[in-house]
């Protein structure tokens, strides 16, 4: 430990020559000049080691006791640094490096968003960038609280946000807002209407009067559950039945048949790459793109642009705002070619099934049949599907509710 301390503070080996070098030792001891490594060379010659900061004082004390003090060697960090005292370029670079570290560490290099689930990180980063929190921004100039409030105003799906600056990293913590539950306005009157034709398989009436029974066939637009409920008077009372206006509620399930059609030309235009290519390099630094090419015209009439970006990433996975990119422009010409009919049919069937699932929603597809027809250079695929799904949808009444006791 002592050696390490001596190395850090530096030491100088001195040779003292004089009639009475012991007096020099005594004087050093009295004046608080620490020394060690005393070596008696011969009569009148002594070598000691002193700390770097005490070397000048020791030399002055040597003159007082009529001894010659000569520096033999230097060791330690101060001596190491002392060697560079005349290397001005090195010192300027060193000072510049220190300055760069001190100043650049105040700039944001990465923005790390945490806590979001439904709101995309890109959306939050985009809004943060708009409010000045972005890679390359000067950290001390950012009012974190103000910026977070402004972002929250722009993103109502977030309920809370905190921006913490940790050196070059901006940590953004967010909490998402809980969506409002859907409230059914029961004062709004209306009916449950079929949105597709089908055969009813199940009715769940919560409010209103069912107009059909299970097994009935309905067409699109027919009222399945009416919001006008007939209220029969007591038997033998002689009074007319009354009508109660309510909001029809319930679920109606039915077997439905859907027919979807899609077509594609059997001859299409395909790309034929000519082999010519052009590369363009660029650097993206702190969100700013620097191109290493001139903005001249592109000599190809038709081309594909393929971008590849290599981002500088730290070992922990942290991505730095420095990326090298290359754009490759590949020239091509187009020409007609006949499509593979089987592949085209498979493609259309897949697309139709995807469209069918999107239409059915929570329902289920019981059976599907596909038929393909070639006509006039077109391939037409028709998908017929039997489904089980909920077909009831609420349709509010545009007319005011009835107030008399007559039938609708």
């Amino acid at each position: 430990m002592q050696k390490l301390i001596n190395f850090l503070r530096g030491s100088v080996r001195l040779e003292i020559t004089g009639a009475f070098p012991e007096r020099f030792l005594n004087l050093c001891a009295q004046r608080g000049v620490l020394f060690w490594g005393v070596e008696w060379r011969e009569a009148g010659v002594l070598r000691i080691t002193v700390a770097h900061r005490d070397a000048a004082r020791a030399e002055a004390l040597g003159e007082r006791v009529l001894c010659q003090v000569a520096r033999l060697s230097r060791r330690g960090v101060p001596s190491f640094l002392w060697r560079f005292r005349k290397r001005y370029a090195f010192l300027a670079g060193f000072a510049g490096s220190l300055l760069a570290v001190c100043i650049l560490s105040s700039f944001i290099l990465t923005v790390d968003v945490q806590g979001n689930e439904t709101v995309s990180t890109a959306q939050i980063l985009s809004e943060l960038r708009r409010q000045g929190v972005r890679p390359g921004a000067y950290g001390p100039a950012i009012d974190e609280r103000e910026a977070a409030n402004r972002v929250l105003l722009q993103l109502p799906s977030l309920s809370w946000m905190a921006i913490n600056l940790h050196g070059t990293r901006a940590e953004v913590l967010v909490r998402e807002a809980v969506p409002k539950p859907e409230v059914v306005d029961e004062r709004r009157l209306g009916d449950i209407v079929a949105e597709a034709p089908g055969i009813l398989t199940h009715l769940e009436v919560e409010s209103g009067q069912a107009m059909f029974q299970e097994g009935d066939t309905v067409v699109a637009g027919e009222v399945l559950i009416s919001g006008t409920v007939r209220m029969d008077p007591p038997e033998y009372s002689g009074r007319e039945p009354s009508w109660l206006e309510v909001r029809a509620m319930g679920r109606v399930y039915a077997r439905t048949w859907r027919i979807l059609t899609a077509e594609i030309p059997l001859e299409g235009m395909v790309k034929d790459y000519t082999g010519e290519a052009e590369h363009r390099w660029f650097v993206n630094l702190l969100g700013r793109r620097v191109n290493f090419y001139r903005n001249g015209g592109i000599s190809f009439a038709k081309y594909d642009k393929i971008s590849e970006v290599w981002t500088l990433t730290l070992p922990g996975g942290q991505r730095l705002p420095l990326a090298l990119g290359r754009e490759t422009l590949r020239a091509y010409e187009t020409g007609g070619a006949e499509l593979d009919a089987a592949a085209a049919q498979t493609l259309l069937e897949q697309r139709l099934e995807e469209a069918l699932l999107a239409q059915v929603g929570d329902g289920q597809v019981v059976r599907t049949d596909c038929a393909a027809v070639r006509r006039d250079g077109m391939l037409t695929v028709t998908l017929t599907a039997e489904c089980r799904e909920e077909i009831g949808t609420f349709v509010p009444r545009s007319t005011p509710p009835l107030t008399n006791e007559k039938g609708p």
Partner: protein
Amino acid sequence: MERTAEVFDLPGDLVAGLPRVEITGCRELRMENHRGILAYGEDEIHISGGKMILKVRGAHLELKAMNAGELLITGEIAGVDFS
């Protein structure tokens, strides 16, 4: 002061500033209240103790550390003489 310390049975190094010498084994000598080194060599070191002179004899003697009040000598100490 030396006599007074002896009469009153007080530690002489505290009352009279007398040298205090502590030898650990035969390789280390620590001295307090010294008055400086009079002669220095690998075989013999003379230290002033005020009214007396302490002569440390031995081989490969080395003044390891020294300040205004204390010093430390290491080496193969053969004997200590007072004069």
